[in-house]
């Protein structure tokens, strides 16, 4: 009888199979991971240096997701991330500000503002595509780690151009997170147009004629074969006949599905790509929602937001929430905000169910005010972000912010490269 308790313990608990060796006591591995997951990213990154064992713990993708989940509950929307193309710097750099860390400014090098396309920031990670060089980077905002993906197999290093022909490549890189497997994926929808050059016999000028038009699809998975991965061609059942016209380059990932807005001649629809199935689907937009201003992910659901512009009451924002993707069930919600807020636009959303609204004017884009709107209580409250005042935001047409993203931030320690433990010197 006496020995049965230890037997029972050893059979019931497989999690503490391995222990950290130290002089005093045995603290099991899962307990160490739990303690580390309670620390801010800065401390965790510093403690990689404690020992080889700790370094490999911290590098584990499982730990990164544990730590990320804890960061979300711990910070409760206190960490904001503001990203905008900095107008004071001429060539490169986007600046990120983290409210929690006193607005640490993060410059992303190699990103030429004029040509860089930033993806949606998903769990603190984003994809940057340089349209000129076709370079694609993945950047982890928390660790400031950046990797460059291998070149798309669809785009040759030397573009196919000859005496009598011309090929134009238009890749669109969309970034998404497959919540069921924990993989980050980049989808490249690449439109390839071949032109034939002909000399007009009458005036001797060149004319271009489309001789070939195809759309190719390939995917890159960051979660599983990190760093060492490659592009994989897929046949996702694209619902259109070799046509990308009208598809926005901005995508929003919600519940493991990437969504694009697609404006057709007479209607507006959403194109959806399931990251698990790797298949496309078309989602109908409710008629009254067409012309919506913003598409965001809130609490794992896709939400369309529109500023009510008709009628007397302009202090309303309509929300359409995609409750069921398969059956295409939308639920409409309306949020009223104080009448003294003359010009509010939805600019972002929080995973915790909060929507971020910004007040801004054409004359002074720096005079921003950010509002939280709780979806459940419909309460609106202003967030004080004093740093916003000192930031010179770029001003787009009609005072609408261009390229400005304000979002909630939770730290993510996911390492994008292959084994950092080896990287840290085991080889050299």
């Amino acid at each position, binding site marked *: *009888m*006496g*020995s*049965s*308790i*230890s037997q*029972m*313990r050893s059979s*019931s608990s497989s999690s*503490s199979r391995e222990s*950290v060796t*130290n*002089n*005093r*006591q*045995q*603290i*099991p591995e899962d*307990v160490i991971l*739990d*303690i*580390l997951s*309670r*620390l*801010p990213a*800065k*401390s965790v*990154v*510093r*403690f*990689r*240096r*404690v*020992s*080889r*064992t*700790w*370094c490999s713990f911290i590098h584990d993708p499982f730990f990164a997701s544990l730590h990320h989940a804890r960061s979300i509950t711990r910070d409760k929307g206190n960490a904001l991330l503001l990203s905008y193309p900095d107008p004071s710097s001429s060539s490169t750099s986007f600046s990120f500000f983290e409210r929690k860390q006193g607005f*640490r400014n993060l410059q992303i090098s190699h990103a030429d503002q004029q040509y860089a396309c930033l993806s949606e920031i998903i769990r603190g990670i984003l994809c940057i595509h340089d349209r000129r060089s076709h370079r694609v980077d993945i950047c982890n905002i928390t*660790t*400031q780690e950046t990797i460059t993906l291998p070149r798309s197999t669809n785009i040759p290093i030397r573009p196919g151009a000859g005496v009598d022909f011309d090929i134009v490549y238009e890749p669109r890189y969309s970034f998404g997170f497959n919540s069921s497997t924990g993989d980050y994926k980049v989808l490249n929808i690449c439109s390839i147009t071949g032109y034939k050059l002909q000399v007009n016999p009458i005036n001797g000028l060149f004319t271009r004629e489309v001789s070939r038009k195809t759309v190719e699809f390939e995917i890159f998975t960051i979660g599983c074969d990190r760093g060492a991965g490659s592009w994989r061609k897929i046949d996702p059942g694209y619902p259109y006949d070799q046509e990308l016209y009208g598809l926005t380059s901005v995508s929003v990932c919600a519940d493991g599905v990437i969504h694009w807005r697609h404006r057709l001649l007479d209607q507006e629809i959403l194109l959806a790509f399931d990251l698990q199935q790797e298949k496309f689907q078309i989602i109908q937009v409710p008629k009254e929602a067409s012309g919506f201003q913003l598409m965001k992910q809130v609490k794992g659901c896709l939400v369309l937001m529109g500023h009510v512009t008709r009628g007397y009451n302009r202090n309303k924002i309509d929300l359409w929430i995609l409750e069921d993707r398969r059956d295409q069930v939308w639920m409409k919600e309306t949020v009223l905000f104080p009448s003294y807020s003359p010009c509010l636009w939805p600019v972002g959303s929080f995973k915790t169910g909060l929507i971020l609204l910004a007040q801004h004017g054409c004359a002074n884009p720096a005079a921003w005010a950010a509002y939280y709107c709780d979806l459940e209580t419909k309460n609106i409250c202003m967030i004080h972000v004093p740093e916003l005042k000192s930031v010179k935001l770029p001003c787009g047409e009609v005072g609408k912010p261009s390229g400005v993203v304000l979002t909630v931030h939770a730290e993510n320690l996911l390492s994008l490269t292959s084994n950092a433990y080896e990287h*840290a*010197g*085991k080889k*050299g």
Partner: protein
Amino acid sequence: MSSSAENPTLTAEITKPSTEIATETAQSAKKITLKTSDDQIFEVEESVAMEFATVKSFFEDAPSSTDTVPLPNVPAKPFSQVIEFCKEQIKFKANPDETEKKRSNSEFVKEKTNEDLVEMIPVANYLEIKDLLDVLNQAVADRIQNRSVEYVRSFFGIDNDFTSEEEALLREEHAWAFEDVDED
């Protein structure tokens, strides 16, 4: 602190006269006898022992057992502190007050040395006392958060197995993580 405060539970439990045990039994306060790895005998009220999930499932398998339960991975010193915590927890079970519970928990860890915490963690983990493990892990996290790598090594008694080149490389890779660290 007086010298008796160092190990109050231990002495109190062991030296209890048998008559007192008998009267408490009459009031339906059943006692459970536990033996630590360093052969100390603890007599603990059943309600307290049932806070230890490991012990609880032992009695679920053998409900009528009156044997001494051996705890081969549990030394007496941290175990007496664990009992101290569980006794407090039981009060809140009968009378839930989250604010008071939080205050009591933070008071409990505040008095403990780093060594106490590090010794109690494996015990709380082995006995599967979720609330205590949560309190201890958070306390350790709070204590090491702004500290240096060297502090953390001595906190857990971990030997540095990196070469100085490797250490320099790790530091260089994320220099921002080594700024504004509290002095040891």
